[in-house]
């Protein structure tokens, strides 16, 4: 059974069909990438999966359960975390606080015991910080641990957002244009991290990306979207040879 199954998804913004009858399935342990020209509806698909938007029609099953029944803040409890195209970091907090917020779904304490800072709150805090350390090690964020996010360079901020998503220990990670704005070195690091996440952490990845070199390097399967519709799918190399795809990118 596929980890994520999207069937006939449709979403309209007014008269614009942002997503039009899109179907695909993501298998456990694979890297599945959605590519396509701008405005194809790729980010919209991600936004629907993370339940920030409600579709007009269609079905999404995660791990056999209907995902559309979950509220926006319940998606992460199911095991799905995400990053954002334009970065949605907590600017006036430190990197550490951002990462700790990634642990929010694993919270075991209530606000009353937190107000009194009972011993079990302290123990829980230590536990959360231990887990976050693992993420910091993985992404090499040691230097920036206590820095305020607002002052950090763009590349580092992207990594922090990735770390925040990882801290929640997801099963499926949605990455929205993770390589956008990164230089070649940073993109190479990203490719390594994606491979490591799949191999070592057992995470399945669904990503939207424009950088075709990266797509070719890490993806197992690719879905091409154009103007809201899925026009091709398969292995990266064969999809890029498909005449419909070439036409979509170069324009008719």
């Amino acid at each position, binding site marked *: 059974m596929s980890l994520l199954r999207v069937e006939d998804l449709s979403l309209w913004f007014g008269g614009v069909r942002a997503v039009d009858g899109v179907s695909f399935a993501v298998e456990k342990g694979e890297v599945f990438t959605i590519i396509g020209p701008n405005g194809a509806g790729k*980010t919209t698909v991600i*936004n629907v999966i993370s339940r*920030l938007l409600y579709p007009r029609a269609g079905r999404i099953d995660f791990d056999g359960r209907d995902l559309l029944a979950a509220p926006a803040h319940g998606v992460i409890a199911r095991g799905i975390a995400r990053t*954002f*195209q*334009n970065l*949605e970091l907590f600017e006036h907090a430190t990197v550490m606080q951002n990462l700790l917020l990634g642990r929010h779904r694993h919270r075991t304490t209530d606000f009353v015991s937190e107000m009194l800072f009972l011993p079990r709150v302290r123990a829980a805090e230590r536990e959360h910080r231990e887990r976050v350390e693992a993420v910091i090690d993985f992404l090499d964020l040691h230097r920036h641990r206590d820095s305020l996010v607002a002052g950090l360079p763009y590349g580092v901020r992207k990594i922090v957002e990735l770390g925040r998503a990882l801290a929640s220990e997801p099963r499926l990670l949605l990455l929205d244009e993770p390589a956008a704005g990164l230089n070649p070195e940073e993109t190479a690091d990203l490719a390594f991290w994606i491979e490591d996440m799949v191999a070592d952490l057992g995470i399945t990845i669904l990503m939207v990306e424009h950088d075709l070199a990266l797509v070719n390097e890490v993806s197992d399967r690719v879905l091409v979207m154009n103007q809201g519709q899925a026009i091709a799918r398969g292995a990266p190399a064969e999809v890029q040879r498909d005449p419909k795809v070439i036409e979509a990118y170069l324009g008719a």
Partner: protein
Amino acid sequence: MNGLAVGAIYGLVALGFVLIYKATEVVNFAQGDLLMLGAFIAWTLIVPLGLPYIVAFVLTVAAMAVVGAALDRFVMRPIIGQPHFAGIMLTIGLAFSIRGIASLVWGPQERGLPTPFAQQPRNIGGILVQDATLAIAGVTALLCLLLFFFFRRTRLGIAMQAASQNQLAAYLMAIPVKSVFTLTWAIAAAVAGIAGILIAPLLAVELNLWVIVLKGFAAAVLGGFGSIPGAILGGLLIGVAEQLVGVYEPSAKGITAYVVLLAVLFAFPRGLLGEPLGKRV
């Protein structure tokens, strides 16, 4: 009729907010104090200096435009680009400052502003209407028409709209965004000044005139916060609503506007003619 007149004033106050908000995304809490300042300036021109009403009217509007422009240029400009909260606190600070300085200059006593309008209402089609009400309605309508044409038809107006929607893009298109803001403040202050003069037949010229800012909020919210015609419409509706409530339950008249405001915000925050809010991620 009185409700409509008061409502038109509320609408003018709301209009000033909406202008500034549309352009700069700052809510100007000092709008009521600008109205008060306009009223005081007009009083000073008419009573101690003895100028004719029309002359005082024009001079007040001009003076208020200068004040508005100066406030933007020297106080509001430095915080361009900062989050909304800074703007709110700054305009609250301005509101206090204007009120405090006005109190020091003019003192706390109430004053009446003499107007050329007849005290006796005239009979129009069987309804008794005050001259003052006609003047308020007329000026408000004229102002709306002028602003409509300005924003829709002139280059400057369209440039102002552009600056309000995306500052960076407007800069890149060689629109002098900062000057646009200053102009917006000048217009909004002038509108406040006009409202301040027009309010004279209805209320005395005194320090507490600033409270009208709260009614202006209610009007702007009811009409839809980004909408200029909405502001006027909202004002009129609130003015009428207040008058009706005053008839049935006089003690509740004062909070009618606030109840309406909360009801609108909770039930349909877009207001009557407003725009959808949202953020693209």
